[in-house]
């Protein structure tokens, strides 16, 4: 079996998808951890506002997740389109 140019492109696309997802998941992981930790501290200091803080925390996490989602979209494009 001979390795042709198309095979190389396919291999590079799959490798790129894996790398994009792996590196792209670092930022959201750190960001969501910071947001969750800060929300825990704030709830510990002020337990009466727990509902509002939880809501704000979830929205903040969903926003900081978006870079991870972009890398997911890039990975999907590399797998299914290239």
């Amino acid at each position, binding site marked *: 079996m001979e390795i042709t140019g198309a095979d190389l492109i396919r291999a590079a696309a799959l490798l790129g998808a894996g790398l994009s997802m792996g590196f792209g998941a670092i930022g959201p992981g750190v960001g969501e951890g910071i947001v969750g930790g800060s929300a825990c501290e704030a709830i510990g200091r002020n337990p009466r506002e727990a509902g509002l803080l939880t809501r704000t925390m979830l*929205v903040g996490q*969903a*926003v900081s*997740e*978006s870079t991870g*989602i*972009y890398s997911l*979209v890039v990975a*999907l494009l590399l797998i299914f389109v290239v």
Partner: protein
Amino acid sequence: MEGIGKVSQWVFHLGGMRIELNSATLLMTWLIMGLILVFTVLATRRREMVPGPWQHLSELLVGWIKDLCVDALGEQWGKRYYPLICALFIFLLLCNWIGIIPYMDEPTKDLNTTLGLGIMGFFIAHGTAIWVKGPKTYITEYFKPIFFLMPLNVVGELAKVVSISFRLFGNIMGGSIIIIVVSYLAYGLILPPFLYAFFGLFVGTIQAFVFTVLTLVYIAVQIR
């Protein structure tokens, strides 16, 4: 694993042009619009001082979103915009929840739906800005703080549309792909129902809320 990259389409030719319609998205969107219609009819038929269950649910939802809008936009504009925001939230909520029923697809799994809603929010926000501030102030705001930052401001506004719509699309699409992959690995045993509950109900609710709140915030930023 076959269902991952597949989109069901109706293709027909019209005078040499090839027209592709995403059949699942269209059918599901119409189904959801029908469900919303049924819900509103149930909620507003026989209104009473002591509300029935449907009326109570709808009053709770509408009141909550109205408070949110009045907080963000102020009394006058909040009252003007809360029907739109409320409709957006209910539509997205049902869109994301319908995926937990077998053989049903989320319309938000298609980029066309989310990008359409994002562009709608963009035009509403900027239309409101022109309406409130007047065209002259609106255009001069792009040249602040220094005039050569204008391209950056324009790109920033366009990036908002891309970010808001790709976030919803990626979350729902990624969730459904994870469900397919895990179902394939675990032969459909034990795990998939919990994944459906997590990605369909939990993530779906949060993403619908985030999309709504961000649209509201974009409008609020333009008004201030």
